[in-house]
């Protein structure tokens, strides 16, 4: 079954066509990749999906419900989250506080916000911080963490939110190469152990080919190719788009 169903999405900014007639599906429980050269409209598509800006045409359905007209918060509360290319965390708060405020807000009523966090929630936060390898740093001001660590924290915060689908915008960009294998492993475990569907924008071919079951490739705002990692790797159009064809 499709968790995400994108149909004929077009998005323009003035005269610039960032996405043109894009259609794709993401299977529930899968890891799906989205690749394409810089400026091909990947992040624009992510922004359209999670409701940052209205789309000009087409439809986006999440778990069968049309979400293309809903605001960001409501989509997030339905269980579809995204992480940012430029990492975003709550800098003045420590790791544990960052985690606790990321609890799923779809379950929380206003009245609940006037209580403190339960022991279970603290344990879950600690557990997930350990999962991403930040347990020892959990009481440090998160704004003082390195970029890579902040990225891991943002990933842990997303897991804390128990989303059904998670859109990751370049999860390995800016991360120390020695840490990337650990991150791939954790993403795969988030998918298999927590059952979170992952939809990943990635420039690192080794990473995405290693993880994704299906990959979509965009170029100049249009769908260029779709298929398994093997098919994509051998697709002449994709190779041309990345290396520049004459």
């Amino acid at each position, binding site marked *: 079954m499709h968790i995400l169903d994108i149909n004929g999405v077009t998005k323009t900014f003035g005269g610039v066509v960032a996405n043109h007639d894009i259609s794709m599906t993401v299977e529930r429980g899968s890891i799906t990749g989205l690749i394409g050269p810089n400026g091909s409209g990947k992040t624009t598509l992510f922004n359209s999906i*999670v409701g940052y800006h209205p789309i000009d045409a087409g439809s986006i359905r999440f778990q069968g419900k049309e979400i293309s007209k809903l605001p*960001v*918060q*409501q989509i*997030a*509360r339905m269980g579809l*989250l*995204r992480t*940012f290319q430029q990492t*975003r*965390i*709550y*800098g*003045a*708060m*420590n790791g544990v*506080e960052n985690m*606790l*405020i*990321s*609890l*799923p*807000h*779809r379950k*929380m009523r*206003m009245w*609940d*916000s*006037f*209580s*403190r*966090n339960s022991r279970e929630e603290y344990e879950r936060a600690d557990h997930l911080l*350990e999962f991403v*390898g*930040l*347990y*020892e*740093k959990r*009481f*440090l*001001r998160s704004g*003082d963490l*390195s970029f*890579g*660590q902040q990225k891991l924290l943002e990933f842990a*915060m997303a897991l804390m*939110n128990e989303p059904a689908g998670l859109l990751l915008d370049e999860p390995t960009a800016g991360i*120390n190469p*020695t*840490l990337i294998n*650990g991150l791939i492993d954790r993403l795969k475990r988030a998918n298999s152990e927590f059952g979170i569907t992952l939809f990943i924008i990635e420039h690192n071919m080794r990473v995405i080919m290693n993880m994704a079951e299906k990959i979509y490739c965009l170029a100049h705002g249009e769908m260029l190719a779709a298929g398994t990692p093997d098919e994509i790797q051998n697709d002449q159009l994709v190779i041309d788009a990345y290396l520049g064809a004459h």
Partner: protein
Amino acid sequence: MNNLSKHALLHWSCLLATVAAPFLFPDFNTQLATLWLMIIVALTWDMTGGQMGYNSLGNIAFYGIGMYVAAVVTIGMVYDVGEYTNAFGGGVYKFTDAQYFTGMAVGVVAAGVFCALCALVIGYITFGLRGPYFAIGTLGVAIAAGELVSNWDWVGGGQGIALPVYPGDLDTGKIVFYFLFAATGLALFVFLKWLYQTRFGAAINAVRDDEEKAEAMGLHTLRYKLFTWAMAAFFVGVAGGISAFQLIHFEPLETAFQTINLGIFMVVCVLLGGKGTLWGPVVGAVLFHFFKEVTWTYLLGWQWVALGALIVVTVVYFQDGVMGYLMHRKPEWFGIRVEQRAAGNADTVTAVDGANSARAE
């Protein structure tokens, strides 16, 4: 002595000083009452400005609205408000003790509630603005509110309203007003101490640190912002209501909606004491009030210059305020942990990750 009993000692001695102050310094009762007013407006300003990252310059509007609501309710329970204000200076309008105190109790609470409702409505419109635009937008609201009220004859127009004088001994009255302000301030402090430890407190901190991220994580950001401002407005409204009775006569632009005085003082108090901390606004209000009274007494003629200099120095050289400075210098006092940077950042990352994968295997 452990940390807990140190905190308890600090809190109890502050409480003792609060109760003893009007009896130790009977000549300064009005000053001390004003100090508590400063603490209240500084603490409430910090709720949005420090904890939530929304710098409002319009909180003074709730002070003015609170004054007027308390006065109108008190008068309205006994006389026709239009006639009362119209007969300014003439006519005899007497209030019995019972009418005075019932009016005060109902009026002050009504002032708080009405201001909270106003904050919800104004907030719904202005919380779409961010950063400096929110500050200017709310300032506009406060100025407009003052102008509207000063042209509204039913509430006395530009002349304002005169309330009945405290029935009974005036020195006792001063002590009563001191304790009304002090009780409100203490209630506010205890309330905030609790609030900032709940998830609500964490949510508004999240809005301050990165509102876009908070939205992306599904927080009901607008709801949190509105509730925070409404709570702040409630306490400012209550303080305004008490002020109305303390000052007896007030007029709209210079007293009630005094944007350039109290409206700015509350911001300076918070900046001086330390934004986004519980004690900062309290410390700042005490320092600021002391500074202000000393310059008003010994530097008369230059007092505004001295005040301006204080603002400039605070904003340019001392942005974190007293508490911010202490937090930076003595983080362990506040339970903040700082990384030992001896090994260098990159090395620590690897070390931590290495340790973790070792555990995983």
